Structures are given as C-alpha cells and as structure tokens.
C-alpha cells in the first residue's frame, strides 16, 4: 500500500552535530533472510552478464525490501535530514530511488542545561513513503510533520519537554554504544565497514551492533521516552486506521486524519483524496443528506471535549432520512455550517453524502461494488441481517426500480418491512448507487443547444477544454478515426422554421448546407440598431423592477430575500433573451414588442397575485394578449395565438401558487417541516422550498446581470413555441405553464434531477411525471447518478 508510511524518523541538529534520535520501526529482517534474498532466487540458466563495462556498476534501484526501508544507515539519514538553516520551516522533500522522504524541519529555541541563554536547535520529523505515493498523500504527511514540530515547539517552550526527552534518548544511545564497544568491538568492525560500503546490504550498522546485545538503543528509548512512544503510536495509527489521535506530553492533543487511508476502513481499496472531498462539498445542495459510517454514539464518544457544539448537535439529530436543510434547521445551524460540518465528517471518514433515504429512491448496484462470492462483506451482511444473503440482495437491485417496489419482493418481508437499515448498510459499503432522473429540454428544431443552457458565453460558443483543444489543433480524433474529413463548420445561427420536422439534411446547419439552402425562411442577421434598441428596454425594465420591489415592501407578503431569488432567475432569463437576440439571429423586429408586452404582463401578474384580485385581470390581460397575438401574426405562426391567450389567462393562478410557496413565513415552514419529519419518517424530504434553499440554488447557477422581468413563456424561443403549439398537451394551460415555469428556472438542462425539482419547486412527483409524459417529445429524460454523491465512489 502506497498510503502507509514506511518509517518515521526523528532527527535533531544543534551545535553538537546531527543525530538520528529515534526511528520506528527499527527492527529489520535478520541476516538469514537477506542472504536468502541474495542467493535464493537465482536462475541457474540465466546468462551472467559479465559485460559490465562500467565500474562498480551494480547500482541500486530500490530501497524497499518487503515493505520496509532498507539500504540506509542511521548516520546517513541523519546527515540528510539535518538541513541547512536556510531550508528550515519549509517543506523538505527528498526522493531516493523509490523512497520519498518528507518532513518539515523546525527550528526552535531551547534551553541549554545551566545558563538560560537560548540556543537554536533544529528538529526534523521525517516520514519515509513510497515514491509512488500521490502528491496529496505527501502533502498530508508534510502537514502531519509540521504539526508534530509545532506541538514540540510548544511543549519545549512550556516545560522544556523536548530537552528532557532528548536527554533520555541521547543517554540511551550512549549507554548502548558503550556497552557495545565493551562486549565485542573487534568483531563488528568488518561488518560495519561492509555495510557502509556495499549499498545493497540490507542491514543497518546500528542494528548489527545491537543485534548481538540484548537491547537496542531504540528499544531502550521506546521504554523510557514518552515522545518515542508517541511517535510509535503515530506510526501505528497511520498504518492501521489513518486517524491519529495522540496527546504529546499528555498535554497537546494532535488529531490528524489521512483521508486516503481512513476511508479504507469502511471500503477496502477505495482511495479518496482530500481534493475530491472538497469538490464534493462544493457541490452539496440543501437536499443532500448524510449517512454516518459509524455508530452515532461511538462517534459522539470519540469527539474530544472541546469539539464543536454544532457538530455534536448535528450528530445527535442525525438521521439518514433527513436532508441537510432539515438537519440544519433542527440543529439551529446555517446551511453553510451544515455543509462544512458534512465536509468535515466526510474528510474524517465518519460519514458519506447521500440523497436522504426514501421509498421513491432508485438504486442499482454500484459499478465498483465488490461482489466476489468470498468477500468478507458477505459474512458481515449475514451477521447483520440473519437469513438474508448479500448476493441475492444485490441481484434484486439489478433493475432500476423504486425502493418501495424492490422491497415488496421476497426480502422485503424478511427484513421486517424496514428496508432503510438494509439500504443504509449497503450504501455505507458503497455497494449501491442511486440513480436520478434528469430532464433535458429538447427543442427539436434547434440543434444548437449550447445557447440554451447558459447565456454566459456572450455570443461565443462553449467548448469544454478538451474539445476546444481538438478544434484548435484541427486534429479531430474521431473524424480521422472515421476516415472522414469534414470541414468543421463555423457556429451557425439556428433558423426559425416550421413546426414539422424538416428533412434531416437540413437540421444540422453546417456551413456547407447552409450555403446550399435558400434563405427564404431564415430571418436576416441582426443589425446593430437592434442592439441599441434592447438597451433602451433595459432601462425600462429596471425601472419597472424597482417598482415591483416597492410593491413587495408595501405588501409585506414577500420577504426581501425571496425577492432576491426571483431576481436571479429573471436576470438569467433576460440575459438569455439578450443572447438570443444579439447573436442568434432570431431577430424579428417584433421581439422588442414582445418584451414590452410580456413585461407588462409580468408586472401585472405580480400585482394581481398580491392583491388576490383576479377580477381586474381580464382587461389587462386582453391588452397583453393583443400584443402577443400581434407578435404571433407577424411571425407567421398563427397557431400560437390561442395558446398564448390561454396561457396568460391561467398565469395568475400558478403565480399565485408560486408566490405563496416562496412567501411562506420561514417559521411556519420550520414547524411544518418538523412536524412532517416526525410523522413520516420514511418520506421524501421535499415538503417545501425555503428561501435559504432557493438562495443557495440560485447562487450556484448563473452570474447576475441587470435584472428585468419577463413573461414565463418568453423563456422559449420562437421555434420552441411553435413546436409546443403543435403538441396536444399544450392545450392544457396548466401543464404548459408548469413546463414554462420549470424551464424558466433552468430545471430542464439536465443538471437538476427530479428530486431536486420537487424539493425546490414544491411539486409532487406525480405532477412531474405527468408533465414529463405529456411533453415527452420535447423533454428527454435520462437516468444517471448524482455526481456529487458518485464522486465518493470508487470506479
């Protein structure tokens, strides 16, 4: 295992010179073994390579022998680790063949015996690792060395701990060497010479000497010195669990975790780097939950007395059924705090991130799951759940089905109808992986997707780094593989087109066929004046918006932060529209009109909902619908007309719903949520969408721009509307509006799964499923894992 340390060294260097005071482990393999190694595996048929042109050419390539360090003498190491003063207090990294030494040389003042004049001493606690260990492992070891150095500096300052310990160690060294030279001095000289000169010798001169006498110096030190014992336990804890909890001098508590190792306690063979955990924490959302890997009571007991009370509360209230948001509210934490604590727990391998357990979850067997028939998991499982067989259980998860469906099977009854514990067990071992359904809005006539998802590339197309470079270098791997050399088309504007599916020739407008086809049905390319026109509308928009705000404040129904969340979404839309108009060439001069009209509509909508005055609606709406229909006529897609009218008619109701959702007083929400949680312990945690959640979600999405307001349907481009109009489902205005609303908020970009939409938007699963079914021509669903959760899985 490249994660484990090979050795730990403690070196000092002061005015009296450098010395390796302690190392662990210090026993080496006995000489028989090393001899065996030399002669044992010698192929009698091998040709002796007598062709050694170079002098003493048997150069050594490995310093690791049977998992232990070999080929270094203590004197040599101490000179290597006793660095010059210029290199102190910074990272020390030295690689010799396949061994990497890492440490943090610490320079500290210490009191010499009698006079109080402080001399400087350098100590270096060095870890020897396999050179193949990744950089993040090395970094962790460096950090540990640094912390040990700091702890020692502190203890030296407080009570001269280091001085005392060093005295003990030096005394033991002197004692042994004195004893040694008394007993057999002559004998060992040769051997020592040997081991010094032949590098391949696997014995240490120090140990050679001490092998003959009953005690080695390091053995003595280990008995006498508490510091040596601390180092020993550091080494042993690193090798066994990766979690170090050592009290230096019974005073300074040193807690350290090597996540690469610690995560292997629960899942052998999975190496999780701290960088992965950071990334995972960044992607955490309020609907995520945590699953503790250990018993919560044990965890509580293992937390030191000065542990954060927030963490304690979180663990006490923990349940795998709760979302982080619920936990945060219950434990009286902010969401960010809850995220940080989660990251902390994950780092220390105490928890993993999941989507809270609920019966609607779909699980499949994880690709990296260990399903060997003799794996220890099989026995562990049978011990935990008598009468059940792990492999049989896993085969039940071969098809993606909701948990309630799976648990109706044979085993459901046997585990007492409570599959939560069982699934939690399987999730802890990373045997199961949850699948989510993602939805992608597909505008059939516009193959040019990238414009939709984010408007953040102002007129530029988005390339991910990899493919960008492909195109830059013009060496397209796949086209060449395909033996086809196509001219890579330049970005082309999507054309507005008719409702029916055109010939497939046309629908991917490469430059070539664009040149061939007539432009009769494409609109002229954008003119500069259009742009300025939009700028004007901008100003109007912002003015309107501020007015909007005013209303909110007066009415006091909507909280400011709720509004802010509205803001974000509208901003986004505005940006999108702008993007469309400026660079996409959907530049019908009526669009401006449209914006104007719909904007009115939006403001109206707001006021209406707030006043709950539905009666005043029709007049204004008719106004709006007139404008809209104008639009539509000019666009030659007259079929849109009634659709739009009907939409607008309905909008207030839905808006109303939306507003109340967002506007719910937080306290109400809390109590409601708590109640719900306590009542239905095994329910989906998607009860309401709190402002905090919205904020968090919105903040993740898109950078903001000057805000405007837009009608919901304007989130669709003209072609999309045309296509929608042809669908029978659009007849039902309620469905259409829900679609538009969700689309507007960006839920149909394949980034948020159904559960997230349910959580954020307070819609029920059945509502969503119906919607997906009705609009299945434009909504493509795909099932895959949540990347934030899947990150912690081994692949």
């Amino acid at each position, binding site marked *: 295992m490249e994660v484990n340390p090979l050795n730990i060294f403690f070196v000092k260097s002061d005015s009296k010179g450098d010395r390796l005071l302690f190392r662990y482990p210090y026993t080496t393999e006995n000489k028989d073994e090393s001899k065996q190694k030399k002669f044992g595996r010698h192929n009698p048929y091998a040709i002796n390579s007598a062709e050694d042109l170079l002098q003493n050419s048997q150069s050594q390539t490995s310093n690791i022998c049977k998992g232990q360090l070999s080929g270094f003498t203590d004197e040599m190491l101490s000179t290597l680790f006793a660095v010059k003063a210029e290199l102190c207090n910074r990272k020390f990294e030295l690689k010799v063949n396949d061994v990497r030494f890492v440490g943090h040389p610490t320079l500290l003042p210490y009191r010499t015996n009698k006079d109080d004049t402080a001399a400087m001493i350098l100590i270096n606690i060095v870890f020897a690792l396999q050179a193949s260990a990744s950089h993040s492992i090395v970094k962790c070891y460096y950090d540990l060395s640094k912390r040990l150095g700091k702890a020692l500096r502190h203890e030296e300052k407080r009570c001269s701990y280091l001085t005392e310990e060093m005295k003990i160690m030096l005394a033991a060294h002197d004692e042994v060497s004195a004893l040694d030279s008394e007993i057999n001095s002559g004998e060992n000289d040769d051997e020592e010479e040997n081991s010094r000169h032949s590098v391949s010798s696997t014995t240490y001169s120090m140990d050679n000497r001490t092998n003959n006498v009953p005690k080695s110096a390091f053995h003595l030190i280990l008995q006498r010195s508490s510091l040596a014992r601390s180092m020993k336990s550091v080494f042993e804890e690193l090798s066994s669990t990766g979690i170090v909890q050592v009290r230096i001098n019974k005073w300074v508590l040193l807690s350290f975790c090597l996540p690469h190792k610690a995560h292997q306690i629960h899942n052998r063979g999975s190496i999780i780097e701290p960088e992965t955990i950071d990334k995972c924490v960044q992607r955490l959302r309020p609907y995520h939950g945590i699953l503790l890997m250990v018993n919560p009571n044990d965890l509580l007991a293992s937390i030191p007395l000065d542990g954060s009370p927030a963490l304690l509360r979180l663990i006490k209230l923990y349940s795998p059924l709760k979302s982080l948001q619920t936990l945060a509210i219950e434990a009286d934490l902010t969401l960010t705090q809850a995220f940080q604590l989660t990251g902390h727990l994950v780092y220390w391998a105490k928890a993993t991130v999941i989507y809270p357990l609920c019966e609607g979850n779909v699980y499949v067997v994880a690709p990296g799951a260990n*399903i060997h028939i003799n794996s220890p998991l099989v026995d562990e499982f049978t011990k935990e759940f008598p009468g059940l067989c792990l492999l049989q259980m896993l085969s039940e998860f071969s098809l993606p089905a909701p948990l309630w469906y799976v648990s109706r099977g044979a085993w459901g009854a046997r585990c007492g109808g409570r599959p939560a514990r069982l699934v939690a067990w399987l999730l802890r071992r990373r045997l199961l992986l949850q699948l989510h359904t993602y939805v992608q809005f597909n505008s059939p006539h516009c193959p040019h997707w990238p414009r939709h998802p984010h408007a953040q590339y102002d007129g530029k197309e988005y*390339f991910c780094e990899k493919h960008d470079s492909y195109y830059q270098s013009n060496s397209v791997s*796949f086209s060449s593989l395909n033996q086809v050399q196509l001219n890579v088309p330049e970005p082309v504007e999507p054309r507005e087109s008719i409702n029916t599916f055109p010939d497939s020739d046309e629908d991917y407008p490469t430059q070539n066929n664009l040149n061939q086809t007539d432009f009769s049905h494409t609109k002229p390319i954008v003119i500069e004046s259009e742009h300025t026109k939009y700028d004007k509308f901008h100003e109007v928009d912002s003015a309107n918006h501020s007015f909007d705000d005013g209303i909110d404040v007066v009415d006091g129904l909507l909280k400011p932060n709720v509004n802010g969340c509205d803001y974000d979404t509208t901003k986004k839309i505005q940006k999108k529209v702008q993007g469309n108009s400026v660079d996409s060439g959907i530049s019908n001069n009526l669009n401006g009109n449209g914006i104007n009209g719909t904007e009115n509509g939006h403001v109206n909508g707001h006021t209406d909902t707030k006043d709950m005055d539905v009666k005043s609606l029709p007049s204004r709406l008719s106004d709006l619908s007139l404008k809209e229909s104008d639009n539509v006529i000019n666009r030659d897609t007259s079929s849109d007309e009634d659709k739009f009218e009907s939409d607008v008619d309905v909008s207030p109701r839905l808006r109303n719903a939306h507003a109340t959702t967002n506007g719910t007083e937080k306290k109400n929400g809390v109590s409601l949520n708590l109640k719900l949680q306590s009542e239905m312990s095994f329910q989906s945690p998607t009860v309401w969408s709190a402002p905090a959640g919205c904020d968090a979600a919105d903040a993740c999405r898109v950078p903001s721009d000057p805000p405007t307001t837009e009608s919901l349907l304007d989130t669709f481009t003209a072609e999309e509307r045309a296509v929608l109009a042809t669908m029978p489902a659009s007849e039902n205005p309620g469905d259409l509006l829900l679609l538009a609303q969700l689309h507007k908020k960006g839920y149909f970009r394949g980034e948020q799964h159904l559960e997230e939409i349910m959580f954020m938007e307070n819609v029920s699963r059945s509502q969503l499923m119906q919607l997906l079914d009705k609009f299945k021509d434009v909504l493509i669903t795909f099932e895959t894992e949540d990347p934030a959760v899947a990150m912690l899985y081994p692949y």
Partner: protein
Amino acid sequence: MMDGNSKYYEGCGQEGPIRCIFLCEFHHTAGPRITCQVPENYISKDIFDTVSHYIIPKVQLQRCTLTVTLLGSKILGFPVRIDNKKYARNAYYFNLCFVCDAWARTVHLEPLVKKLTEYLLSMELETEWLSKQSMSGDAKALNSLMQQVMQDINSRRMCTLTVGTTTTHLTVVRVNSDPAPVKDHQVPVFLYSRQSFVADQWDLTTNQILPYIDGFNHVAKIASLTDVEISLVRACVQNLVYYGVVTLVPIFQYCAVYSATPKLRQLTRCVGLQRQCVEFCARSPRQLPKVSDLFRMYAGMSYGSTVRDLCRRMRPQELAINERKLVLFGVLEGLIRRVYKFPVTLHNDNASLRSEHSQCIARTYNGLVCLDELCCQGGLTASQLEEQLERDSDVIFIVK
C-alpha cells in the same frame, strides 16, 4: 519562472520543461562546486551551498537517483564516484543534475539523467573527457553538450549526442503504471488518428494486428483474423495501451446494456463534442444525424434496456445514426458506461456437496467474471449462455 500561473501548482501532475542542467564536481580543495551550468547562474552559489550535500552525497547514496525539492525547484541527479589513484584524493565525484520547477512531474526524466550520466562516465573512464573538460576552465564542449540536451529534450523530447566517435540517444519515455492485463473479450480502439501512427516504430506482430484494430474486433477475433497466437496479441495490445495509442472498450453486442453517466450533459453544451459526435456517428458522411437524436439515444440507455431494445424503439437507421459507432463514441468519451452482467454462484450447502461429486459440471462463478468474458471463453452466444445459466438454480445474476 511560471510561479504566478495558477495552472501550475505542486501536484498538478503535469510535466514541465527542464529549466537548467549543471554538472557538479567534488573539488579536492574547494569541495562541491558547479563546473558548468546551462543557462549560467540559474542555480546561484548560495542556493547550491544549501543543497550541495544532496548533490554530492555520502558514499552510500552513490548511484541512486536523487530528487530533492527545495526552494521552488526540483533537482534531479545521479551521483557517481570513480575510484582511481590518478585523481586527487583517489576518487572523482561528479553529478549531472537537471533542474525543473517544483510543480513539474519529473519521474520520466530519471532514466534520462541516469543514461546521460553513464555516458559521461564511460567517456571519463575511456578518455578522461569529463575531468579534462573541467580542468580546461571554460568547458566548451561540455557546455554545448548540455545546451543541446536541454534544447532538444524540451522541444523534441529526444536527443542524439555525438562526442568524438561515440554516440548516444536520449528519449523521454512516459512513465505509466502497468496497464491491467488484456482480456480476450476486450476491444482495442485507436485513441488518435491511424495516419499519425508510425508503423516502423513498432514490432512485426504489432504491425500485423494493426489493420484489424478498428474499434469493433475484440482481441480473440483479432487473433483469429491475423492468425497470431492470442497471448501475443494480448501482449501487443497491452503494450499499445501502455503507450496510450489504444484504449480498451467493451465489446459491442445488441444484448449489451449501457447506462448514461453524468458526463452525458456535456453533449448538450459542448459544441466541439457535438460536432465530433455527429460526424462520428453518422451512417454516411453525406447525411449527418441530429444532435438531439443522438442525445435521445444516449439518454435512452439505462439499466434494464439493451441496445436491441433501444434500436427497436428509436430506429437509428432512420435517423442516420450508426448505433455501433454511437456506442463506441459514448464509451470513449465517457458519456455512457457499460453495465455488465455477472453470474454468481450462491453458497448453498447443497452446492458445496454437489461440487465435491461432480466438479466439472457445476462450475462456480465467483462474481469476478462477466458474461462477455464467459461467452468469449466458451465460444457461446450470450443468449445461449444465459439460457444455460438460468437453468442452474444456484446461479443468480448481478448487474453492475
């Protein structure tokens, strides 16, 4: 120095250029010192003094590759000592060091340093070239040699040195961990254009199997098509995998199951990926499929639905999509992943009893071998094998 660039941090895993090459010797009176350095004064005297005992180390560290990371740079060396009465102090110590930035990966340079050092060593042993160079004061030949190494390695990753009548070749070889053993049912695919593949660089067997590596033939089939022993094919393919020329993908079958990965959403936004996908998956270059159709196909891949089901439902031939290429592209780009089916023998008491009696009939499946591999071993079709296994009540399937 590129310290300011955030892309290059320690541990980023990228290779960096050689910043400096210097030769360091142990002078009999002055101690360790730099004889010759390219470019001049990259390593200052002060810095050198602080690190000199890692560059001219104690006896036991001679002939070890040493890498020391200090003060923002990495120094690689291979210290050498020549014992001979003719030198002052009866020995000649030298070390030729490469200096790189601290963030750079340098493992691949280690063999290079070693080889170059051994070249200098042999010249020193034969003609005392090196010690004469250092005596001469300006060390012109050595200087130009180091200059050449640095330039050529940084720009072309290979270098040919000629001094007098001797020649040596240096090449940077990528150091990768050994690839997993190749299995018979796996399919090799070229990762880059076949045209840029220089056939002369490879051995005869590799050249023989090359034309059959088309992304669809699996190893066993290649072996039978080329009439090459299958273990040789495996070895060749493994070698190609090591050098990153090919990668291995699962075999295409209509009964295979794939699942979309989170990376699939890349297809909705990266234009470059879309174009590649459209070009690659087209049935004919004249008629390109639609991105949305391609996406729909990928999105339809999930646990429990085979490629056959998908093709029946979506009719890719009408959409101008070549479904084989579609799957290949998806796997290569990581948009989809293969979902394997593993037969597992349950540990019943009966089973163990029976296996004692008739071991060859009831074969145990330990959960490590997927159906593909079994089919390939037994020369059965997937449906035949599945039928056969389903009759065995002790065998269950786990899909992952």
